């Protein structure tokens, strides 16, 4: 265990040294690679692996290193989070670091999951670093500070330096600026600012227009997020022979919510058998309800068929208008759910639909 220079602490007037904790995976802890990826979460006093470097760069003491296997947290996320939050419950720390994760997808996911959980539970800023190709960036950049990093551990020093420098600003209580200036990936938080030497809007507009007119590069002040357009599917050839599935982001689930789908910012979805049912029973009958926090649940609880229209599809089935209603409906919650999570859940659901030979989906929102 390496400790900080005690003289330095004294020279700062005996003020208690600030503390930080670092999360790393089994590989960077030197435990092992893929074969050790199920390593159970553990906490060690002092510095393990990259913690030594962070401890040098940071104006705080790294008191502990948390280690967890990438597979463990990937496949048993809730359990891993609970264990790690438990490690931290009685500890005092001012900052939480995770990574750097470079381009490693599962490690990026782990840093994001644990960073977000620690930040939410202990109100301590979480800082990480990931390469822009790491899926963890899109998944977690809105939740924690993530700095752009290199592709591999060769960039360890550079990446850790960015994390530490920003951490030092937070430790000093300095006012931090906007993402572009500080260097982290924008968190989707937009606030008005007065820039130094700012030109008035009229000048900015005319300058931008002249650049646009001359085909020169210009910088919009309000970037429009790229919209992922999905082409409309070809029409069904014969509806009377088609198997139709019901999928919803309206949060209809069995009343005990067996899959523990979250009421907002969902990461989980469920599939529920409806073969043999003419319609969905309601909450009072102990059958189905909505757990979606983004709209008034009264109507959905009273008649879940208004969100998942099984009753109407059954009628069409009887009339021969459609071939068959698929034996399950699929459900998650749309409110606050990120596009990345929604797309992942969509892909997972589609795999089941393909397997069952579903021809078309009625996708209902709220």
């Amino acid at each position, binding site marked *: 265990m390496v400790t900080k220079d005690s003289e330095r602490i004294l020279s700062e007037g005996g003020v208690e040294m600030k503390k930080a904790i670092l999360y790393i995976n089994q590989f960077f802890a030197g435990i092992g690679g893929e074969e050790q990826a199920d390593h159970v979460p553990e906490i060690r006093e002092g510095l393990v692996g990259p913690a030594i470097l962070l401890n040098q760069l940071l104006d705080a003491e790294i008191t502990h290193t948390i280690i967890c296997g990438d597979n463990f947290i990937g496949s048993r996320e809730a359990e891993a989070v609970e264990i790690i939050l438990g490690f931290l419950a009685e500890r005092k720390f001012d900052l939480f670091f995770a990574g750097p994760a470079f381009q490693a997808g599962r490690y990026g996911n782990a840093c994001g999951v644990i960073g977000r959980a620690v930040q939410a539970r202990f109100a301590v800023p979480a800082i990480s670093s990931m390469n822009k190709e790491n899926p963890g960036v899109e998944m977690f950049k*809105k939740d924690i500070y993530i700095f752009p990093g290199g592709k591999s551990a060769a960039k360890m020093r550079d990446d850790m330096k960015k994390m530490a420098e920003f951490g030092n600003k937070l430790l000093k209580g300095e006012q931090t600026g*906007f*993402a*572009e200036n500080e260097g982290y990936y*924008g*968190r*989707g*938080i*937009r*606030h*008005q*600012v*007065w*820039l130094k030497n*700012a*030109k*008035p*809007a*009229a*000048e*900015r*507009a*005319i300058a*931008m*227009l*002249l650049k*646009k*007119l*001359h085909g020169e590069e*210009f910088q*919009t*002040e*309000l970037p*429009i*997020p*790229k*919209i992922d357009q999905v082409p409309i599917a070809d029409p069904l050839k014969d509806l009377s022979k088609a198997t139709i599935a019901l999928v919803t982001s309206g949060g209809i689930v069995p009343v005990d919510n067996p899959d523990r789908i979250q009421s907002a910012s969902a990461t989980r979805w469920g599939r529920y058998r409806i073969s043999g049912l003419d319609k969905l029973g309601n909450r009072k009958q102990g059958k189905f309800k909505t757990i979606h926090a983004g709209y008034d649940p009264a109507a959905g609880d009273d008649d879940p068929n208004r969100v998942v229209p099984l009753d109407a599809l059954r009628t069409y089935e009887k009339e021969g208008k459609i071939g068959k209603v698929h034996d399950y409906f699929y459900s998650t919650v749309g409110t606050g759910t990120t596009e990345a999570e929604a797309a992942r859940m969509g892909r997972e659901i589609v795999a089941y639909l393909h397997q069952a030979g579903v021809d078309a989906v009625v996708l209902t929102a709220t």
Partner: protein
Amino acid sequence: MRLEIANFPVTDVIFGEKTSYQDGLLSINKDEALAIIREDEHITSADLVIARPGENKRIVPVKEAIEPRYKIADLPVFPGVTDRVATVGTGRTVALKGTAVLAVGEHWGSFGDGLIDMSGAGADYTYFSNLINICLVADTDEEFERLEQQKKNHALRWAAHQLAKYLGAVVKDLEPGIENLEVYELPPITKRTKEVNDLPSVVFVMQAQSQMEEMGYNDLVYGWDMNHFVPTLMHPNEILDGAIISGSFMPCSSKWSTYDFQNCPIIKGLYQEHGKTLNFLGIILSNLNVNLEQKQRSALFVAQIAQSLGADGAILAEEGYGNPDADFIECFVALEDAGVKTVGVTNECTGRDGRSQPLVTLDEKADAIVSCGNVSELIELPPMEVVIGELQSLTRDGLSGGWADDEKLGPSVKADGSIILENNSMFCGDQVLGWSPKTVKEF
């Protein structure tokens, strides 16, 4: 069309025996000025109060701001409003520079009213903290709307326009220094030189506020309600010379006051570039009606006019947020689809936490936007020694950025006179017509 604006810089305003202007000192005979105000029998009580930059003064509820002006020789200053309908934008107009007449409720505020701090941190949020404000603080007998959140504020707004004209007349016989004479001249579009015609040609599309279906709340062009309007071509001089007056509806930081129209920085900027880097064709005036078909119709008109004029580029500005964002994006896309390269100017509504979608609707074609502020930014300000108007209006009367109570934040107005409000209620604070020194950044 050739317009001369003869500016007479005002360095101080005082009350005196005679309404006069000399060497920058504007003196107002208060009784004489108030007599003009009281010609409207709906004004039941009125006073004039001066607020200078740097003073420890807070003004609320502010309903309108107007630059004091007079048009030689007694031609309409606000046609179709306080004067007969006649073309403006030609001839000479005199202006008392550095001052504004403010219409301030003595007690009662409304949704579109705002707040001005003359010093301290609050002064950064509005252009009007830089001006010597001549505050008309008045009450009226408009009982039908006294307790309404939306008010037409007709009597007060019209009285302020009358006062602005009365004050402007004080310099009608004076000749300004050459440095204070602004000349705005733009030849007819088909009568310009080859050099000018060879430059990229640009229109300025102004989407003025028109959301209210009932008359009396919207911006007026030559006295005509902008809700009953389809887009048309106008000469920039008309806008600079009083053709449009501000309405009484929009959350205040998004609002364009009459003063903003009279001094519109985007128009002045385009004039400056005219003949150098661009060919300024003129203004396409449009609106912000709430009905979808009306939005589409206006966008079609704008795109058609721009295309017929052969515009290469456009600056597009909206007076509002929320529902008007749909008009802004609709029009932006229509212009781009018509081959007119467009830059939009707007504010955003990203919420107090900054996490909401900035505009109600977005489109990838809106690839060039100047952003002037976030309406929902939370602002806390200390008490001011003097309040002009009534501070309680911020918390009581449904101003767009104030509230009576909040579980976490309490009321907007605290016992000691300090306040917490959203940027929404900063008087014409987002300055989308071109002053805004603010932008919005991602954190």
